[in-house]
């Protein structure tokens, strides 16, 4: 009948298992698939991420040199990061914060990556 008594007494003297979110937040684990970012100046706008994305949340436009992700459609699977040929895509640990308005993450390339010429290696 008093099977939970030990647990109840232990709970009185132990630390709380919950925290006062959002005042107190937990440190994210490293390598967690959080927000998706693009180091746009290194991006070659090849569109591989757009092609591989299972939720069609990435739009790459070569003409206007823009790369856009819809963080509300992203499923945080990390497939785009793995398929990026120049490794300019990365996912940061903190999760997307709740927001009252949906804002797209749109990046415009200004200069772009330095073009490799044949003799560059020498």
């Amino acid at each position: 009948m008093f099977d939970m008594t030990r647990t109840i007494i232990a709970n009185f003297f132990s630390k709380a298992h919950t925290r006062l979110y959002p005042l107190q937040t937990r440190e994210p684990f490293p390598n967690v698939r959080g927000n998706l970012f693009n180091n746009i100046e290194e991006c070659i706008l090849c569109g591989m991420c757009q092609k591989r994305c299972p939720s069609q949340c990435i739009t790459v436009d070569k003409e206007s040199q823009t790369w856009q992700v819809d963080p509300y459609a992203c499923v945080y699977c990390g497939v785009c990061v793995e398929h990026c040929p120049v490794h300019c895509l990365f996912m940061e640990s903190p999760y997307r914060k709740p927001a009252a308005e949906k804002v797209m993450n749109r990046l415009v390339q200004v200069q772009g990556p330095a073009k490799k010429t044949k003799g560059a290696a020498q």
Partner: protein
Amino acid sequence: MSTIIPFGPQHPVLPEPLHLKITLKDEIVTDAIPMLGYVHRGLETLVSIKDLDQMVQVVERVCGICSCIHAHTYCMCVEGILGIEIPKRAEFLRIIWSELHRMHSHLLWLGLLADAFGMESLFMHCWRIRERVMDVMEATAGNRVIISINKVGGVRRDLSPDQLRWIAQVLDELERELDAIKPVLTNDYTVKKRTVGVGVLTKEQAYELGAVGPTLRGSGVAQDVRMTGYGAYKFIDFEPVVEKDGDSYARTMVRFRELYQAIDIVRQLIRKLPDGELSVKVKAAKPEGEIVCRSEQPRGELLYYVKGNGSKFLERVRIRTPTFANVPPLLAMLPGIEMADVPVVALSIDPCISCTER
């Protein structure tokens, strides 16, 4: 005079739209008719627009709770058609994450059951313990529930020796915490009063109606797809957990003992984890042929039928989920019980309606 009461689609025990038309005579259930189809999403049809690799992320979303096992079974099917043999380390890692999924699914269900018969404190304790498993998944795979670590040809993430040591440590703590709630589940008057002798499914009924998973094993049939030795299960020693009584309490105990079994399996896997590659390269795969693969989900046997037609899109993916097989046994359990016991009995098969309707 008989009364017909709609149980669902919105009701207090399940967030999912399980709808039963229940015929009552006074307080006693005489008949139940299931009504399904509220959350049909047509995921199987997506094969025509999502290619082979993208379908991994689609099938993971058939069911949130056992996403890893869905992706694992799908990958097994595609690898089977293509004739790919994945590295041994990848097989072990897949099963480690699958068993972690089984743990968090069973703990979630135990909490929901406690909530259904009104034992709020046990519900909170189960979900607190579950958070440990969720933390392991978040730290190792990157996400909490839909962990997306399977891909055709292997796995996408590795476990470092430090992480393996940490997982073993967490499993020890988990076992201690399960020991603490064990007397409540096994002895407590509140739990026994609501579950013992309620919703009895005999061994013959379970077998004839095609029950699967803990529902079948709770009725005394030792059938577990993991015993067929798919993936890395062939390297692991374990016996299916069986209870003989066939009531809601037996099904609860099967799931509770499976938690210990899952801890033991993960320990064995960590001990025997071989070194090697994580995946093999699968380039421009165009599978042709058909295949059927089975695996054991927390809720029971999962069956995938995959047909390829020589293009990068599959022709057909057919999924039979365990809850679909467990609905007829549920209908056999209901007649003769009181209306107040229907939520607990319905929950005792661990229904996942979004799985069933896909």
